[in-house]
């Protein structure tokens, strides 16, 4: 109950912050917003004063700040995102269209990273200081120092330019998933593996774990009955927090690979100063973070009832 209230307040604050930030963005655009929007709509060669004035008239870009801001926040809280300044389509429809592509990419990346990272981390955590543990430490430290865009660059150079194995851009077929997903997976898996390894090492060193083995359970049974459930709690909590990193990765990776998702759209919206699109996208991303973490709170409390006490 308490976490629900906290998360609701967090969600509300996220909405107000984004509202304020995008309003400030709208108000302080360098140059005349009307010209920029007109350029976005009609192309840079077709902009003249008449077109800019028509845009200004239509969108009400003049006027005092405070009533405009309150109206702005009111629209936002009624979940009325307005229409894209560039395409003229409702923002909701545009986001709904792009979210699917991003979600499928993010889901593939998270699932793959969960298949690679935690199993290796658990194996390493069962023998702290062993060969696997040391190798994993070196590899994950190295991978963490490679930002996603650099990973994308390296993958493009090695797999699609040098060996011509995979397409560097495109969307629609399964093989187009491989490079963007891989660029995200390696970084995520490196961190997942470290979290799982630390949790496993800590739990394996606890008295109850040794007791389970003394009473005659095999290492395998001990791990399945007593290890995994305990390891999953910090891992899930961390996965929720990692959502922000994932979104940042998705934004960059989509822009690099030309993936038609929410991140790609966001970069374009920022570039052409399409404020309603920026606002809608930012709100969807921020609220999904709150929602996912609320879900993780709930799930971890189910897994480990001690946490709700």
């Amino acid at each position, binding site marked *: 109950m308490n976490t629900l209230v906290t998360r609701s307040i967090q969600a509300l604050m996220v909405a107000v912050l984004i509202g304020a930030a995008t309003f400030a963005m709208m108000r302080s655009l360098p140059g005349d917003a009307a010209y920029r929007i007109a350029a976005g709509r009609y192309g840079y060669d077709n902009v003249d004063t008449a077109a800019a004035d028509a845009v200004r008239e239509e969108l009400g870009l003049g006027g005092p700040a405070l009533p405009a801001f309150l109206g702005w926040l009111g629209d936002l809280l009624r979940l009325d995102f307005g229409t894209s300044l560039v395409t003229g389509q409702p923002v909701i429809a545009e986001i709904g269209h792009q979210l699917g592509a991003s979600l499928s990419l993010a889901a593939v990346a998270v699932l793959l990273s969960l298949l690679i990272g935690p199993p290796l981390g658990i194996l390493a955590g069962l023998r702290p200081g062993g060969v696997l543990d040391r190798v994993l430490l070196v590899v994950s430290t190295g991978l963490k*120092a490679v*930002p996603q865009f*650099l990973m994308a660059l390296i993958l493009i150079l090695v797999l699609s330019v040098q060996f011509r194995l995979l397409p560097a851009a495109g969307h629609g077929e399964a093989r187009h998933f491989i490079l963007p997903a891989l660029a995200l997976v390696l970084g995520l898996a490196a961190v997942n593996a470290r979290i799982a390894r630390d949790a496993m*090492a800590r739990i394996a060193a606890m008295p109850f774990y040794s007791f389970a083995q003394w009473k005659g359970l095999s290492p395998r049974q001990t791990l399945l009955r007593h290890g995994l459930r305990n390891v999953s709690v910090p891992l899930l909590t961390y996965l929720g927090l990692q959502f922000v990193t994932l979104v940042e990765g998705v934004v960059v990776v989509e822009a690099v690979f030309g993936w038609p998702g929410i991140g790609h759209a966001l970069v374009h919206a920022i570039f052409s100063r399409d404020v309603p699109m920026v606002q809608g996208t930012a709100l969807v*991303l921020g609220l999904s973070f709150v929602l996912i973490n609320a879900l993780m709170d709930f799930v971890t409390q189910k897994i480990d009832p001690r946490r709700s006490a």
Partner: protein
Amino acid sequence: MTDAVMIPRSAGHAVRWTGAALVAAVLAVALIGPLVLPGDPYAQSLLKSLSGPEAAAPLGYDHLGRSIFHRLAHALRLSPAIAVAAVLTAGATGLALGTLAAARGGWTDRVLTTLADALLALPGLLLVLIVLAIVPGTALGFWAGLSLVLWVEFFRLTRAATRDTLASPAVQASRLLGFGPAYIFRTHIWPEIAPMMLTAAAFGTATAIMAIAALGFVHVGMRAPTPELGLMMVELLPYWREAPLALLSPVIATFALLLGLTLLAGSRET
């Protein structure tokens, strides 16, 4: 609990020193290199386009015939300078607000924590992009945006550590003896949070450098012709077959810098 238990203390120190040495080496090239070998990062000479290394340009030339070495040195001053400025601002703000929230409690604490939690829910790159659109000047925008993103981490660390310390018997004793807030901060709180601050600062610097490079790479950060790490990579990407060294130099320099900062931060997980 973390690696500190498993790895001997000396090994942890060795890792940190390796990181510091790596960062120092990269920065030394950036700061001293152009002094030893003067050159202009903007000077073009199309005849030398994509040609290999020579005495005046140890890393060869880019597609417009500009010396990669001098552009790289310039880029390696720019991003770390912005990153360090942002981390200093964020660190000071986070430290002040975190101590304030822990010391005051009540509504001050609640409002600041709610604000920090809300900021935590937003992807950092998104905030930086929005601030970049508001603030005139790219370098200034990066500084403001990154400061806005990074202070939350410092705030959370300071607040948590200060709350624990303020509740300790040692602080109670100091208060009973009549010492003021400044003394308590200096003798009790600062020694507790100083080591954490170093780790957070190293991570923050790495995050900031990554953000600047990533946005440069997708063409929404620094503008050409400014030499910037991400921008150099994306400019040189089409010429990979003709001049692999030209592309590899910024890639390797970025990786070395980020790896150094990660090692310097130590083994704490983020």
